[in-house]
């Protein structure tokens, strides 16, 4: 799954932020801010893309460089958000079970 997310994020970056640069020259771990590829308003475009493409809700406090400042960071963040509900579903019944058992 991560390679599919990687490809889709790469395509979005290429279409919307790389007007002159070759997409291939951007490595997965390159910081967008350091490279000057995305400015402070560009990040909102990125959030909009992530929310609409993957159907996830990005909280204000999650809009930090650790989550979105490189292709790898975005892939990790999206994967984390997409897997989170499964973890939640596994935990809840065992707690309820423990309560009822008590």
């Amino acid at each position, binding site marked *: 799954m991560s390679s599919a997310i990687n490809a889709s994020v790469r395509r979005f970056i290429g*279409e*919307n932020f790389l*007007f*002159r640069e070759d997409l291939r020259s951007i490595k997965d771990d390159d910081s967008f*801010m350091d490279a*000057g590829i995305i*400015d*402070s*308003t*560009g*990040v*909102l*475009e990125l959030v*909009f893309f992530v929310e609409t493409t993957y159907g996830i809700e990005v909280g*204000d406090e999650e*809009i*930090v*460089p650790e989550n979105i400042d490189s292709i790898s960071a975005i892939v990790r963040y999206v994967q984390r958000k997409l897997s989170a509900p499964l973890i939640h579903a596994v935990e809840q019944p065992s707690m309820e079970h423990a309560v009822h058992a008590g």
Partner: protein
Amino acid sequence: MCGIAGYCSLSGGGLPPPGVLQRMVGAIRHRGPDGEGVHISRRAGLGHARLSIIDIEGGKQPLSNEDDSVWVTLNGEIFNYVELRNELAARGHAFRTHSDTETIVHAYEEFGADCVTAFNGDFAFAIWDERRSRLLLARDRMGVRPVYYTVRNGALAFASEVKALLQYPGVRAELDPVALDQCFTFWFPLAPRTPYKGIFELPPGHLLTVEDGKVTLKAYWKLSYPSAGEADAADRRSEGEVAEELRALLIDATRIRLRADVPVGAYLSGGLDSSAITALIKLFPQSGLRTFSVNFESAEFDETAWQQQVVAALRTQHSTIRCAGADIAALFPEVIRHTERPLLRTAPAPLYMLSKLVRENGFKVVMTGEGADEVLGGYDIFKEAKVRRFWARQPQSRWRPRLLGRLYPYLSGLQKQPQAYLEAFFRTGIDRPGDALFSHLPRFDATRRAKRFFSDELRGALGGAADGAPGGYDAMEEMRDSLPGDFQSWHPLSQAQYLETTHLLPGYILSSQGDRVAMAHAVEGRFPFLDHRVVEFAARIPPRMKLKGLREKHILREAVAPYLPDIIAQRPKQPYRAPESVCFTGPGAPQYVGELLSPRAIAATGWFEPKAVRKLLAKCQTGMPIGNSDNMALVGILSTQLLDHLYVSEKAAPAEAPAVACA
């Protein structure tokens, strides 16, 4: 107020036939629809397109002194002409008209070239001294009125607008790469440079003399600030005293700007500055004050509610025009034809519509609040710089940058921006508080992103690498080099004010947003805040009285408090802005946009990279909200393409609007 044009011989060489001067004047007829005049002598020609405001009957130009040895052609007004005239008459000069223009020739007779320092006004004029075979070209201190010049075939030609110079034999429009770089860094070229090679702008506060075959330039006025340490120590004035003196100066500046033989109206945006001017006008006797404003469909830009409050409080008769994105797009080519330079913002277009409204209501003169933000510390950039400097003292601080969120109470788009990215924007240069351009680094950086679209050829012409790596011409370094020697000794607020007042004000606000779009409909703007006595006084006001904490224009609010309802006097700044790229990319976008931004058209002019522009246009057409840098890039590229189409390409006739424009 009007348009001027002319020429003089440099080396005793031949001058063009009289028809040339008529054509030069004809090209700026929109500035002066009330009459035209020329005076041609053996070595010079002066031309004038008149907008009659003072002495309608008698004030025809060009006009002369008692024995026709000194001639003048003036664009603008000498507001203190009444006082000057009395003084000159007392010294024996005989006046034939009641015009302000005539004071110039008599003042020249009396004081020589130094006469310009006696004028309180907005002016660009040419004096031809027949006896000395000397031409004098002068421009006002703040850059309200324009004048351009070029040297061609042994003569110097001058005019209010470049389109008139293009009527002079041998003068062609060719875009200047360095000027383009400056426009895509600062929003304007650095005077005397213009977007056109070999065509120059007389800088504000300068005199140009042509005599004995030589052209010399001299500054007769310079904006200066006290050095930071001295100013605070020596200044014993209280806020009350300063406010009172500022009030008196503003009232007098308004008084002399009401001098006209036609009715005077006012622009009223609803903000503090135009409200203050309107209130000051009402101190003088008049029968009903007409005010005008432009309004927007989009709530983000609209100020209607505020305007209505001021109109009711000051009891003016108000007219307003509604501006939509489609209007801006339809008018944009005509606006560019008037501005004659690339634009990074669409804001001049609604103001073009506003001056048309003024004309349609029978007015030729309006007073506006321009200049208050520059001289009294109103712009957000001044507050930003203050917070950034505070942050720079402890760059690792986590809470200092939290102040950034307080800077923009009005701008919902920016409010949505996450803290980390606001910080990234404002962090620009945080490690360089000693940089002379510190206050302006974030703005320049955001604008310069548009240079990513420069073609390899343009980059090459600037001495830079094709891949955009640093090297070659550095516009910011040129700006640094132009700063006065004592600049770094001034208070940081003064430094930032100087940059805005000396550069952005004449380079963009007074020109593209001011004179060009107002004079497109023969409407003269007058600016009490730019009276040089107000400017000089304001430069000496202690910075803490201008920007008190994060409260902008504090001392102005104190000064005008007696005349305005509290809610207006205390209103925070809402900058004048208009919708940007969205005007050009919706489903109703005019055809010329697609044509001029097509890969074929981009390749034909050669300034930008076709694939990159196509990507930008596609991005803007997705309907996603577009960020500041992309907006500026699209508007900048489109306006440059329009300039090329209107003035440079062989096929275009210089004085006509393009066929692609919608009416």
